[in-house]
């Protein structure tokens, strides 16, 4: 990308940052689900609620 003035430069970089922020919001939600799932989560649920949860 070639910026001819400061306005164009910031329009580009801020645009990219907004896109990254959107990606980060989706990413952190998925990562949170991944981190909180799995064997540890199942074991804890089983301990707290038994096999019928």
């Amino acid at each position, binding site marked *: 990308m070639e910026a001819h003035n400061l306005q164009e430069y910031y329009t580009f*970089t801020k645009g990219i940052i907004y896109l*990254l922020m959107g990606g980060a919001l989706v990413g952190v939600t998925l*990562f949170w689900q*991944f*981190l909180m799932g799995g064997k540890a989560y199942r074991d804890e649920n089983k301990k707290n609620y038994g096999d019928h949860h």
Partner: protein
Amino acid sequence: MSTPASNGPKSAFNTFNLVAGAILVVGLILTVLRFTQGIGPVTNLDDNNPWGIWIGFDLLCGVALAAGGYTTSAACYIFGLKRFHSAVRPAILTAFLGYALVVFALQYDLGRPWRLPYPIFVSQGTTSLLFEVGLCVMLYLTVLFVEFTPAMFEWLGWKKIRKVVVKLTLVLTIFGVVLSTLHQSSLGALYTIAPSKLHPLWYSPYMPLYFFVSSIAAGMSMVIFEGSMSHKKLHRMMDEEYLKHHDGVVFGFGKAAALVLFGYFFIKTMGVAYDNNWHYLVSGYGLLFLTEMLGFVALPCFLYAVGVRDRNLSLIKKASIITVLGIVFNRFNVSMIAFNYHLPAADRYFPSMTEIGISVFIVTLGVVIFRFITTRMPIFFEHPDYKGDH
């Protein structure tokens, strides 16, 4: 049944003591050389590179890796996660020794140790970030010492003064968190003064934030790493209470470290986007940056997450080693490798054997003191007179 404290090492002539003793003797000789010959003959420092491995490793890495003290005590006393209580004393001791050795190592760089109080008590440079770092480190080292003293007082049997200090725990923890936030970020802020010297991939106005956030991940990883090492080598000093909580501490800190590393990865990417530095990623320094980001941030983040999900202690411990190495790699990149990147190869800095030797001496000194204290004082076990008194 004997208490863990009564089971000291059997012989003074074991492998650890012999190797550590040899390193300490060589270190003392190098110390004499440094303080009799001056800084020039024993280092590769020059006007282009006045800060070398003693700042890059001993100070920047030392402070970051000592961050386990404030993260653990904040988790336990401020956020109320009492299940981490067993990790507080080892983490505080590691942090206290880490900071004490940072100040000790600084003497090799500065020379003239008797001038140490000058910047704080005689001639303050109140507009300087270095003054702020110095003031914070002095205050935080004092706070860490006071936080550590209950273990010492229990060992000495000084019950009254211990009771007074224990009452100050919450206040000291708050002080510790505030002071750590200040100086961890200020160390990053120091490098914002050199935009033309530090490679654009590492230079960012957000560097204070990077240093602070990465110190949290480093501190938690260091607690896991140091806990695992101690678990292996100092198992005889640990009581049932400590051993019962060990796995829970590792899983809890692993989970938190995964989240912090995830956030750190994104804010570093924001930094590249903010300055539009994408084109540098396809250069040699870009490869170095990608190695740091993918190999030492994204990879341990993923390993931590998988380790926590699958209840895999071994994987979490591996991730903690990679994170610790990653922090060292990052601080080396900022302070040495990507610093003065435009200089010709002949003018680039590489530490002399003496500099490396003194750094190894200081790390060994830390390990020896840690071992000395943990085999005597109630760090990994509760003193019989104060069971459940926390």
